[in-house]
């Protein structure tokens, strides 16, 4: 089994703004900080290393609080060869309802989804806090409206606030899909940012990074149109098995749905088709079976649980709006799609039976004539091997697309 930890990075791997933030905290860890950062900007990586540096240098009691159990497992796995992170990392509800002990410092990841009362709780149980968050990745209405995240923004206006604005995770192909779900939020309106500017701020740094625009990393995202539910699952199962049996060094896969009922159904269908995967249980009591250092990991998970994580491949079957089962407002629904697709490092697969009802297809339908998206029928997948462009072709097309944009 191929194993490799995401946490094993070098000093040279850190981007300049990531280094600058870490240095500023090491310089003066007796104050509060707020690190804003777009999806894929390395907030969690920075936080996970920061806690270990501060514990060593300052001998302080510090805890990294995350929002989901899965993210807590991801961080623990990342460091399991060099230390035991069990006491360093905890998901918020575990701390609140189990230990609820005070610490010198809390580092709080995904704070945009924390209710105001949770934020107050964290503050009252610590001397200092480092908040990490991004309003564009808000997934819950209860935290969107209660002013908690806003209070953190207000506390750091003009001082101690740092922003990581560059996404280092997504290829330009993936970013082109994710950008279709970018919304303006109240903080953007306050800053006078237009939607075009926000999208440019997300896309342009990626377009300027050779690693993220290289042909090797830019297979187009695949949209599969199936005749019926059965064909759709046949095609998805075939692609997953092909990837799992392939020679790539890293092929972590997340198959995502919004609702547990839908995950149960898809899980059963994929199992019947011989797909090997781990399904995240509702009470997350099988977390220990998931090993994020296994580069051949395939999980079936709710979208909400994928916050903060990254995978080589994201699969989003049954993308019709009525099959997704959204229950929040449109902004949150778009944030969910943005968070889901921005988890991918290599490629996204999205499928539907009814193209016109696909939430994802409708979001990109005005921009489908480019080389970042490829549309195939399930029969093509089931009848022959997956159509792929050579890296050279893909690279040429990416170059052509950006030619003339003056980037």
């Amino acid at each position, binding site marked *: 089994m191929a194993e490799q930890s995401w946490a094993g990075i070098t000093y040279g791997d850190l981007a300049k703004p990531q280094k600058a933030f870490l240095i500023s905290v*090491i*310089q003066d860890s007796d104050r509060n900080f707020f690190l804003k950062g777009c999806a894929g900007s390395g907030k969690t990586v920075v936080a996970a*290393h920061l806690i270990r540096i501060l514990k060593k240098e300052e001998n302080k009691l510090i805890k990294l609080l995350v929002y989901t159990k899965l993210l807590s497992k991801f961080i623990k796995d990342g460091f399991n060869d060099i230390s035991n992170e069990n006491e360093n990392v905890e998901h918020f509800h575990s701390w609140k309802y189990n230990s609820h002990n005070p610490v010198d410092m809390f580092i709080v990841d995904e704070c945009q989804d924390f209710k105001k009362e949770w934020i107050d709780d964290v503050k009252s149980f610590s001397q200092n806090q480092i908040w990490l968050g991004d309003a564009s990745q808000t997934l819950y209405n209860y935290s969107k409206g209660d002013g908690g995240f806003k209070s953190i923004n207000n506390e750091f206006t003009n001082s101690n606030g740092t922003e990581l604005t560059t996404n280092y995770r997504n290829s330009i192909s993936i970013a082109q899909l994710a950008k279709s779900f970018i919304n303006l939020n109240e903080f953007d309106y306050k800053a006078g940012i237009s939607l075009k500017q926000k999208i440019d701020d997300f896309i342009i740094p990626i377009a300027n990074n050779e690693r993220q625009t290289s042909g090797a990393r830019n297979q187009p995202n695949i949209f599969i149109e199936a005749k019926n539910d059965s064909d759709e699952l046949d095609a998805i199962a075939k692609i997953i098995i092909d990837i799992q049996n392939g020679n790539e060094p890293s092929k972590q896969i997340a198959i995502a749905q919004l609702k547990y009922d839908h995950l149960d159904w898809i899980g059963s269908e994929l199992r019947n088709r011989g797909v090997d995967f781990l399904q995240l249980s509702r009470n997350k009591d099988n977390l220990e079976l998931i090993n994020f250092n296994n580069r051949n990991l395939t999980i079936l998970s709710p979208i909400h649980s994928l916050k903060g994580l990254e995978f080589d491949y994201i699969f989003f079957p049954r993308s019709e709006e009525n099959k997704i089962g959204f229950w929040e407002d449109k902004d949150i629904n778009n944030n969910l799609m943005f968070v889901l697709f921005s988890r991918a490092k290599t490629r996204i697969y999205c499928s539907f039976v009814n193209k016109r009802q696909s939430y994802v297809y409708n979001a990109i339908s005005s921009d489908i004539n480019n080389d970042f998206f490829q549309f195939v029928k399930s029969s093509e997948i089931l009848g022959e091997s997956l159509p792929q462009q050579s890296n050279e072709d893909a690279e040429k097309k990416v170059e052509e697309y950006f030619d003339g944009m003056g980037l």
Partner: protein
Amino acid sequence: MRNVKIIAGKTKTSNKPWAYFKPPAEAKIDTKFNLKKGLVVNNINIPNNTIFTVIESKNLGIIAFASNVTHVSKDDLSLKQNSEKILKKYFEEIQ
């Protein structure tokens, strides 16, 4: 003030620090810009709320200029260098 590149330096003779950037083309000569977020450029500290005044420079054309900026203190510099050492050492040790 998004996406502007602030240039900072010091005069050769008096060692006095300064900072400037190219304002938008439509800026009038008497326009003032208020820096919302502090930053350090070239070891010169430009705090938040620094006022940049648009002037016409002989050599540089229209620029937004600020003279009320300060050198980063030696204490700050050594603290920063020390923090950088700590960071480098940590990443060497985990390899």
